[in-house]
């Protein structure tokens, strides 16, 4: 199952995004999240992804970030969380970062 998100993943939007994302977690199988169209991410957004990732793992439906935008790629690189969230990078910048 694949899902694509656009807009911001920031403190301004996380309260809305959390229930949305939880509702999208499938009963079984894998959730593929395409975040390449996300404009802005901050600590709240990153925290949200960690919550979802953990919840997905607990439910036995692995979450995969199929693509991330520049902004998120930078944060993941800064926090060394790219290993944990294991995003597939599809942007040229992501490749070299």
């Amino acid at each position, binding site marked *: 199952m694949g899902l694509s998100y656009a807009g911001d993943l*920031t*403190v*301004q939007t996380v309260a809305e995004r959390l229930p949305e994302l939880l509702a999208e977690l499938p009963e079984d199988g894998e959730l593929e999240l395409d975040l390449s169209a996300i*404009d802005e991410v901050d600590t709240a957004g990153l925290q949200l992804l960690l919550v979802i990732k953990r919840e997905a793992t607990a439910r036995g439906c692995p979450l995969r970030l199929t693509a991330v935008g520049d902004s998120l790629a*930078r944060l993941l690189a800064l926090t060394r969380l790219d290993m944990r969230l294991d995003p597939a990078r599809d942007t040229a910048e992501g490749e070299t970062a």
Partner: protein
Amino acid sequence: MAKTILVVDDSASVRQVVGIALRGAGYEVAEAVDGADALRKLDGRKLHLIISDVNMPNMDGITFVKEAKKLPAYKFTPIIMLTTESQESKKAEGQAAGAKAWVVKPFQPPQMLAAVSKLIMP
């Protein structure tokens, strides 16, 4: 996409210099001449940061911060208060109102840019 900062100060020269510094660092800058004017400019546009003076005519900075924090679209917008070293109590008032960051006047552009880049990533 460049991030947008609203600069609120009744002194035209302060707005000018801060504007020059911020634009030079790649930010978009919007300006307001006092709290009331600033509140009018919180019209739904996307702002990443607000820099506001404390003592201003029409509506002072503290009142402006309180009002801004009531608006859903701006309740999480970081705010830098321009305080002075003789106004420690104003800083506390500003913090209580929701302006958690400050720059002490007199400051020079590099100090302002440092505060800004602590709060928002380029």
